[in-house]
């Protein structure tokens, strides 16, 4: 795979990629997109207009179909990983798209930039996020070429990837794993479930995402996140990909 030096492999044409929200197109008082969203990722914004939270989004595109004003569109862009939870919330001027993840700060970047060992904990994950992480290890994606590796013990790890909404029954194991990783360490929340609880948010049996149990350094949206979105997020976090370095997409 030529990426990241060459162009990325194309997303499926119906995937749609990250969403874009131009609230300047929203007429006063319009909220036609709000009731169609299954996870309430779209909600009226406190200061008027609407806000779209890609951390809750299942990318079903029901809102895109429902909006009569073309305010919500699919960009086809696979990039949507962010450092802050609020960076995933779209709406208002200058917030049409996700604020993409910045690189780790100096010391962490020096430590992990060329060698990152990650422990993966599924905590109520359905198996799809886990599968698409495994995909990155296959010969096509070859994650090892970036010095990123998944390891079998938290004692070997620099950080942790969390999949799933964090079932209460996994809370203890998740916290124990995090505590067993030596400082300094990072945590990555993978997919809508690990960011917000996804479609199971609000069930008393889950904790609505990783952040309720451990601090999170990188949020990777998707249901599940596409392998390309995951790789982009990891490389961006390690400072190995800058926003302007996005190679031209194949037509």
């Amino acid at each position, binding site marked *: 795979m030529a990426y990241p030096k060459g162009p990325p492999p194309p997303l499926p044409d*119906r995937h749609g990629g990250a969403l874009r929200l131009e609230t300047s197109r929203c007429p006063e008082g319009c909220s036609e997109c709000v009731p169609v969203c299954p996870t309430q990722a779209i909600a009226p914004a406190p200061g008027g207009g609407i806000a779209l939270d890609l951390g809750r989004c299942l990318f079903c595109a029901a809102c895109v179909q429902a909006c009569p004003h073309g305010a919500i569109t699919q960009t086809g862009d696979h990039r949507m990983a962010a450092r802050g939870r609020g960076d995933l919330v779209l709406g208002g001027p200058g917030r049409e798209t996700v604020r993409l993840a910045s690189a780790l700060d100096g010391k962490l970047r020096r430590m992990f930039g060329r060698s990152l060992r990650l422990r993966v904990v599924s*905590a109520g994950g359905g*198996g799809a*996020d886990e599968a698409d992480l*495994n995909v990155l290890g296959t010969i096509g994606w070859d994650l090892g070429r970036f010095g990123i590796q998944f390891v079998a013990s938290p004692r070997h790890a620099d950080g942790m990837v969390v999949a799933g909404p964090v*079932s209460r029954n996994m*809370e203890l194991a998740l916290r124990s794993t995090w505590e067993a990783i030596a400082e300094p360490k990072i945590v990555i929340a993978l997919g809508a*479930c690990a960011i917000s609880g996804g*479609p199971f948010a609000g069930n008393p049996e*889950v904790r609505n995402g990783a952040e309720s149990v451990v601090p999170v350094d990188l949020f990777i949206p998707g249901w599940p996140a596409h392998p390309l979105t995951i790789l982009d997020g990891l490389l961006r976090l390690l400072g190995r990909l800058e926003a302007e370095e996005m190679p031209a997409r194949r037509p």
Partner: protein
Amino acid sequence: MTTSTSFALLDNGSSLPWEDVPEWPVEEFARRTAAEIERGARLCSFFGVPEDGGTRLVAVVAFDADNTLAAARSLPASGGYPSLTPSHPQAHLFEREVWEQHGVVPLGHPWLKPVRASAGSAPKNGEFFRVGGREVHEVAVGPVHAGIIEPGHFRFQCAGEEVLHLEIALGYQHRGVERGLAGGPHRLTESQMDGVVGDTTVGHATAYALVAEALSGAEAPLRAQWLRLVALELERLANHTGDLGALANDVAFLPAASACGRIRGDFLNLTALICGNRFGRGLVRPGGCRHDMEPERLARLAERLEGALAEVETACEWLWDSASVRARFEATGALSAEQAAELGLVGPAARACGLVRDVRYDHPAGWHRLAQAPVAVWPSGDVFARARVRWLEIQRSGQLVREQLASPAEGDVRIEPAGPAPDSLAVALVEGWRGEICHAAVTDQAGRLRRYKIVDPSFHNWIGLALAMRGQAVSDFPVCNKSFNLSYCGFDL
């Protein structure tokens, strides 16, 4: 055989009024359920429905040879009933689950302990079975495993390398799925069905769609039924290919492991070609499908399918031609046909014991009524058989999809179904890639879901893995585990 049953007969993907489901006091209900199993019925689902301060037990059984399902219920009960498990082991987990959820006690159950209940921040697993003796030691693994997989706990009783007993304790993935579905359908229901088991989205979403359609008295358009079949078989192709790669990896046969890992992605991308999502999220909905294929897309799908099928064939030739692979697969983790039948195993795990048991063949619904693949069986019951059945199913599913893409159904892909009928029971079975998926719904007087019961094939099959490990070296656990490749979240719901 079924002509004399006292249960109410129903077809796969149909419903009947709740009051027409025969009812007896719980002891009599248990006795009659046992009698049906003795006559060859298979327990598909067994669950409680709270009512009048007690709990009604509901049994859904399948008469595979007669291509029919049958259902019965008890009167509301609160105490106990004679356990079915001592004489019919396939009831063992169902009875534990009913006890855990409703407090109705299966009297005489040999191993009554929680299934997935929470004890604060971990499952309430209860006591583990222990083997005595000075040389016996215990190995505990999990909940977090070495690879990137879901969590669960395995407790081995070993004498040296030999496993005397394995107890599998799950519940870590419990998300409250069934409880959250009650009172619906609400606006999250369809997405939750997509996410019941992340790698079986098409299977579970199709089962829900069949239940919802049965309750509304409608049928999805033929074009949608056709598209669901294509998507279901693509899901099978992707997962079986991935499983063969994972099995190759566990015996350190890296060429097939590497190739299958990549080809699995090619199959997932075919599903993404249809609906944009590699796992089929958002494709199957009550009333039909949310996406259709224009002729050009269909042609592209057919072309890319041929490429992936040719590549998986090459990779599997390497696998089967390798003597070292066969030596590791053969006679490892074997179960007999009698064990598989007693435990009520389903899917490839059952067919690898020689049982001819496949919902697509025994209880066809949707487009499977019109298009079928031969049932793939292998007699030896070991890791080899479970791998071999997957390979046979890859070939047969590939051929089935190939034929279907060449002769698509015409017409619309979606209708808007009416609301669900009140006070009804609906049941749907789908042969997912792991085996039989069973969804059952009981509606209230307003047509809301009073009780929604999901049985993933993993619920039947985990005990098969536990028994397959007896007498094996503990180091054979990974390859035995992969040969079943069961879902944790599908069990824990």
